[in-house]
């Protein structure tokens, strides 16, 4: 980089004088032989040491907040020299954090940082930084041509050469105008009857067209990736969606009464992070605890969670709890990183968690080891179920009485009564209709041998359930005469769980029977002191809701829900936006009545509608099997015609079923706008890319909080001069608002962002703080001032550490369910139809060696699902679409005789894609210093031309499986999943796209993964047409897009070549009762991030074939293999080394 500069000595040479001789004597003194006497003791001249002192110096230091979607939220110091951030470090000031009452966190929370945060300098300055706004050439032409369209409304293809097109640099203003124009045109095009007709011609599902109610704005989808990560700048996309009601009003000439805004995609559920069974049992989003709670537990079961790699700054709580005596049990589907911290590590078959949890529950129930008091006070297990209707037995059926009034921290809203804002909710709020509909329930009093009514008030200390019938059958006399055969939920579950005896569990899950019994007894021995930290492993399978219901069952049986040292947590993503339950003050401010007085709170009305992005991911249609529509009406998506997202690579660049989405779904979408600061695969496929500030350049404060730690964090404004032509995300929103105002003449579009333009974003933040139950009392100015010094604040949650369920246990507060109890039985028709009124085990829908998605159960009177024929499909139709709604019941004995339909064609490897330590999602995986350490194939000097980058994707495979396939450690392999739709539907006839989308990667012998189970990390950058072009045409073989600089980490394809969008009927009910997203009001049916599809991103069965030898440039085997240093290739020295044979020990004289 620096031009050659003559060294001092060479310079002096020109001033030539006599020979060397004159200098020798003088030059000798310092370095005579004497000087070398003993460097242990003395060194003649240490003046040179100044160079490292100088290298360490910095001119300034400032603080910024690093908050990818990993929940850690680290305030970091940026050290600046000559105007450049040369390095980053922790502030070491979390130990100074306090709450409003003066409670303090300790310095054991420090340091908060990680290698990815330290690598950010390379993302601030690196060559893939989005340096200025960019627009795709064809898109610009389409807009400038006046949005030409065909008869069906579709734009001409030639304008939409996404992924291969050229890009044009534009100003922010120009980019904003293009986006505003497109939003307007697309909304207008699909508004009203003509709009509906166009969509019909394009083949959209009638139900999807119907939900739009004529508003074209409903086809505009917006997403701020994990809004909790930026209450104003990320959540702002939803505020934008709300203001789009003004656009609808402008286009259709309607008023606030009927105007509709845009649609907002979900987040937590979209990431397959939501544990969908938690709301099915507790009626609210998720049960979780702050991770420091582990210090107060006696046993911690780390279940399908790679804690030490995904919760890195809080991993020390685990290892420190362990060294103080907490027993660590890890359940994983390989010898995972976290297994190395386990007192016991149990390796299981992927996707079998429901069976394992039921098996553990079986031991507890069989041996009567359960916490009877907890079961009676907090669960529905004593409640009676009618074996005829399969519904809970209602008190009205038995006693003919009306539902009793509710008083326990509960208020029933009278008809038409509106709930107050969420932040001030104290009591739980029940809509009158629902209360009446649920009625009261019944348990059987064994002592008096009689049925007794119970209201949802009667939980915890208020529970009258003393000696209930838990096992057996009763014929209960009905008020209307006659009797009905009833069984307690406990009895039904006990019968079902008995199918999962330890021996069966060992066969099904691979967990040794002895380990299952041992673990069940250990947990039951310390009721209330086991923490179940469950992770994404089990959650990313199709049976994830049953997984939650079964794990929560085990936890409830052992008194482990809602206690500081005994609870369940499900960890992934930073989801609980309700931590700021005053957020509607900002996102839902009524755009027709904007509050422009900074001192006053906003008037709130929601005009936007939420929907799950899984329908867009499911080829933009709901789930229909045969003649049955299995997507509930409350869930129904609208057609997707425009997408605009921020802080979100997962919605496109790293989307599940990526190649099907970009090749078959994107062509139906007319605008894709992205706010980014790093050129991701999302940018590759976009039309407009807004260049936005990195965390180090934010000029507007923002805030966030976390579900795994107690801190309230502010993104402080930073003094760093913007490095490139970037803008804050929120300024981009304001700018597009202005352009919409200019275009429509409605200045409310611009006023909606007034305080952003005035540099007063803090006004919005303060409104949210004031309106949120756990933050009221904090002043944003003070929070930001502290953040500037590297000090966060502490959330005013009920407890520190946060323990969801604490109020239910401590205050006898009902759960957010019909019964007020933890409900392990689901009486709603959707669940009964699916055969899931009980928590059941379904085999994974693709990642199984057996018949996919089959319900494993013995014949039982209460499992009566609707079978394939009821939907008008063949019993043996196992095609991917039909499979999702297939309710076939078989006992294990029969299931184990079955095989996956593709097994015969060599698809016999489960392929799962977990997240790893080297990335927070895809941040900042592709930076050189991170990539080179990501797994075994990193090489910063790229000695092998085939390496797409300095690190690359690889599949971990059991060495014996690899040998059978003739694959050596380090070879390149092809990985193919179900050819009917992966990597994308129609690849057989589309060689142009098949070329870059088929997965080619290194194979790594991984002794820790069982036979038949392969793993590829989730985090790496996918191949795109451009990266593939670079890889195949550049002399150095770099997989870099010649037009955009996008850098892939695969030669072709990615881990998402094998995944698919999956929809499960029980994720899409209209009847599940659950708390609202914010506050204490109860409702039912669809709720984004609470009750909606999650997908199943670890479901893929694959075939693996050898592609190329692993040796340099494809010659011979990979060098470490040749040298005998790899598993299964050990040379003699390596074998002795493993055995510890290089030292021998004999007793010494001292004994």
């Amino acid at each position: 980089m620096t031009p050659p500069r003559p060294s001092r000595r060479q310079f002096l040479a020109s001033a030539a004088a006599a020979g060397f001789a004159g200098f020798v004597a003088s030059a000798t003194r310092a370095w005579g032989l004497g000087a070398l006497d003993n460097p242990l003791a003395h060194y003649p001249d240490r003046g040179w040491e100044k160079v490292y002192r100088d290298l360490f110096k910095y001119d300034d230091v400032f603080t910024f907040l690093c908050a990818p979607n990993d929940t850690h939220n680290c305030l970091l110091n940026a050290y600046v020299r000559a105007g450049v951030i040369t390095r980053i470090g922790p502030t070491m000031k979390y130990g100074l954090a306090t709450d409003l009452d003066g409670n303090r966190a300790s310095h054991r929370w420090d340091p908060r940082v990680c290698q990815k945060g330290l690598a950010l300098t390379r993302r601030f300055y690196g060559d893939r930084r989005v340096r200025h706004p960019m627009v795709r050439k064809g898109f610009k032409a389409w807009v400038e041509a006046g949005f030409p369209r065909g008869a069906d409304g579709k734009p001409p293809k030639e304008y939409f050469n996404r992924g291969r097109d050229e890009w044009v640099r534009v100003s922010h203003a120009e980019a904003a105008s293009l986006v505003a124009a497109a939003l307007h045109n697309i909304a207008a095009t699909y508004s009203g009857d003509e709009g509906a007709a166009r969509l019909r011609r394009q083949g959209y599902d009638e139900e999807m067209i119907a939900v739009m109610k004529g508003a074209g704005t409903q086809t505009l989808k917006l997403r701020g990736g994990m809004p909790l990560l930026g209450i104003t700048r990320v959540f702002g996309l939803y505020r934008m969606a709300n203001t789009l009601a003004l656009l609808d009003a402008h286009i259709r000439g309607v008023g606030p009464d009927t105007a509709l805004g845009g649609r907002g995609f979900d987040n937590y559920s979209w990431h397959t992070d939501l544990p969908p069974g938690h709301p099915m049992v507790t009626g609210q989003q998720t049960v979780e605890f702050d991770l420091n709670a582990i210090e107060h537990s006696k046993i911690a079961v780390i279940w399908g969670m790679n804690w030490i790699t995904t919760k890195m700054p809080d991993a020390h709580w685990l290892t420190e709890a362990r060294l103080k005596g907490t027993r660590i049990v890890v359940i994983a589907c390989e010898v995972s990183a976290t297994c190395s911290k386990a007192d016991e590590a149990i390796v299981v078959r992927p996707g079998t968690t429901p069976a394992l949890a039921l098996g553990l529950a079986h031991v507890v129930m069989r041996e009567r080891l359960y916490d009877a008091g907890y079961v009676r006070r907090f669960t529905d297990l004593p409640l009676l179920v009618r074996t005829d209707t399969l519904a809970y037995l209602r008190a009205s059926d038995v006693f003919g009485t009306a539902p009793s009034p509710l008083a326990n921290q509960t208020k029933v809203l009278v008809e038409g009564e509106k709930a107050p804002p969420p932040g001030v909710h104290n009591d739980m709020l029940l809509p009158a209709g629902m209360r009446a509909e649920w009625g009261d329930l019944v348990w059987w009093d064994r002592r008096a041998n009689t049925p007794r009514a119970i209201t949802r008030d009667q939980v915890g200390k208020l529970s009258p359930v003393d000696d209930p019938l838990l096992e057996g059958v009763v014929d209960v006399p009905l008020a209307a005469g006659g009797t009905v055969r009833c069984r307690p939920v406990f009895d039904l579950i006990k019968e079902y769980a008995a199918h999962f005896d330890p021996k069966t569990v060992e066969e099904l899950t691979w967990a040794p029977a002895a380990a299952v019994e041992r673990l069940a007894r250990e947990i039951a021995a310390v009721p209330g002191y086991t923490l179940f930290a469950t992770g994404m492993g089990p959650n990313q399978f199709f049976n994830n809701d049953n997984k939650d219901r079964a794990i929560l069952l085990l936890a409830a049986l052992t008194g482990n829900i809602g206690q500081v040292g005994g609870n369940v947590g499900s960890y992934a993503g930073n989801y609980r936006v309700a931590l700021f339950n005053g957020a509607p003050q900002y996102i839902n401010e009524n755009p027709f009545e904007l509050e422009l007085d900074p001192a006053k709170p906003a008037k709130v009305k929601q005009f936007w509608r939420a929907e799950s992005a899984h329908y867009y991911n499911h080829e933009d249609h709901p789930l229909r099997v045969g003649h049955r529509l299995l997507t509930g009406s409350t869930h129904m998506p609208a057609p997707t015609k425009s997408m605009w997202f921020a802080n979100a690579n997962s919605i496109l660049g790293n989307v599940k079923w990526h190649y099907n989405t970009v090749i078959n779904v994107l062509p139906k979408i007319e605008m894709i706008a992205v706010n980014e600061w790093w050129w991701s695969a999302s940018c590759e496929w976009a039309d407009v890319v807004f260049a936005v500030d990195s965390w180090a350049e934010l000029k507007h404060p923002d805030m966030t909080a976390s579900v795994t730690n107690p801190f309230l964090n502010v993104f402080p404004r930073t003094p760093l001069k913007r490095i490139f032509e970037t803008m804050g995300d929120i300024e981009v929103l304001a700018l597009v608002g202005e352009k919409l105002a200019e275009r429509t003449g409605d200045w409310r579009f611009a006023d909606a962002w007034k305080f952003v333009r005035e540099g007063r974003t803090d006004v919005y933040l303060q409104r949210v703080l004031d309106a949120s139950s756990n933050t009221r009392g904090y002043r944003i100015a003070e929070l930001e001032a502290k953040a500037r010094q590297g000090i966060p604040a502490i959330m005013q949650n009920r407890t520190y550490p946060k323990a969801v369920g604490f109020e239910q246990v401590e205050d006898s507060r009902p759960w957010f369910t019909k019964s007020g109890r933890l409900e392990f039985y689901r009486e709603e028709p959707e669940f009964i139809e699916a055969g899931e009124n009980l928590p059941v085990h379904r085999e994974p829908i693709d990642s199984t060696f057996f018949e996919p998605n089959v319900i494993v159960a013995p014949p039982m009177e209460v499992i009566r699902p609707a079978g394939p024929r009821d939907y008008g499909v063949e019993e043996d139709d196992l095609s991917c679409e039909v499979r999702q709604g297939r309710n076939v019941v078989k006992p294990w004995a029969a299931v184990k005789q079955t095989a996956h339909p593709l097994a015969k064609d060599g698809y016999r490897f489960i392929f799962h894609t977990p997240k790893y330590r080297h990335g927070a999602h895809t941040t900042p995986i592709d930076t050189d210093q991170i990539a080179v350490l990501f797994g075994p194939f990193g090489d910063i000097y790229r000695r092998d031309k085939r390496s797409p980058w300095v690190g690359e994707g690889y599949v971990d495979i059991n060495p014996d499986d690899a040998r059978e396939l003739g694959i050596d450690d380090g070879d390149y392999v092809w990985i193919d999943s179900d050819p009917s739709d992966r990597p994308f539907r129609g690849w057989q006839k589309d060689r142009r796209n098949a070329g870059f989308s088929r997965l080619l990667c290194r194979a790594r012998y991984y002794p820790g993964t069982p036979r038949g189970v392969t793993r590829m990390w989730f985090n790496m950058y996918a191949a795109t047409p451009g990266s593939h072009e670079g890889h195949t045409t550049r002399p150095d073989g770099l997989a870099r897009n010649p037009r955009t600089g996008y850098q892939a980490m695969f030669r072709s394809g990615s881990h998402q070549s094998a995944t698919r969008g999956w929809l499960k009927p029980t994720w899409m009910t209209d009847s599940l009762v659950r708390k609202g997203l914010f506050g204490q009001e109860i409702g039912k049916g669809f709720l984004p991030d609470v009750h909606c599809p999650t997908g199943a991103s670890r479901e893929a069965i694959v075939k693996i074939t050898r592609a190329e030898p692993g040796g340099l440039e494809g010659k011979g085997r990979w060098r470490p293999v040749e040298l005998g240093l790899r598993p299964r290739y050990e040379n003699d020295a390596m074998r002795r080394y493993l055995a510890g044979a290089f030292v021998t020990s004999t007793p010494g004289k001292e004994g």
Partner: protein
Amino acid sequence: MALVRNWQLGRDMSYWYPEARPQRQFAAVFDINKCIACQTCTLACKTTWTSGKGQEYMLWNNVESKPYGFYPLAWDVKLLDMLGAQQWQGNRYAGRTLFEAAPAGERVLGWRPDDLDYAHPNIGEDDCTGRIDAGAALTVPHAAWFFYLARICNHCTYPACLASCPRGSIYKRPEDGIVLVDQGRCRGYRECVKACPYKKVFYNPSTGTSEKCIACYPKIEQGEQPQCFVNCIGKIRLAGFVSTPEQARPDNPIDYLVHIRKVALPLFPQLGLEPNVYYIPPVHVPLPYLEQMFGPRVGAALAAYQGAPDDPDLAGLLALFGSSHQVMPRWKRTGDQVLGLAEDGRELLRVPLREPVYVRAAFDSARGVVRTNVP
């Protein structure tokens, strides 16, 4: 050659220069049981010291998965194989050190890695021993195991790099025992690269000199812990100064762990360098491998560490790890509080053994608002 005392071997040994211990010896304790291989230490070092040209491959601090991980490739296997099987008699080393095993014409037994040996710095990441065919239940010690070994320069009492430098351009600072390569005088012969058994000296092809970990002396000089310590989120590290066994003080945290409780052990002590980074060995790994790596005291060290639940002093001292950016040369425990102290007894840090639980009122009447865990 001179005869010097190496307490880690329980005997005298020969060394190129006479024994000369610094006034204070920089030392560290790493608790392997807490290491999560996040590589934050690696990046902290890299972004601070080796972000220059020619240093791209260079990791003064690295973390490798044992037993299949190495940086550079096979660094320990290769040397142990060259040295051959050696013997301990009790706590006395009966085998040959690298200095005693030096071939004719050499000062130290060593080898120089090939360019390609540095190619894959995280090879073997998470690879375990043995095989997993289907399900398994691993109890301590694990039948299929691996662990993470974080490595920096050991700032040895008897550095092989220093002994091997024909120019005497490597020296030990008398004030803290930190071992440095004089960047103004090094001529890039790479004798030190060959001699250092831990392979912690690296050649910079862009400057033509050999470079190594400097224990962040610009920070040590200010009483601060090095970058790889302060950035360690596994909180596995504590920096300080170690005494010889005779001078050990219980209120010196390093002495306490190394000499008093003997839970922390040197890495490959048999090589004879008296390395000054001490490791608390991993509890889940079989003994033979650990004895090969940490010497004959491993069994006792593990037993002491596993006693921590009933040992508030040990558990308490371990809670100081990673909680301060300052060097804490003294420490003490009072009840459930652990204090890190300066030489003069000044309190530098105070942390609880267990993070407290706070329960707030369900209704904050002062601010008229509900405080809930389910907002």
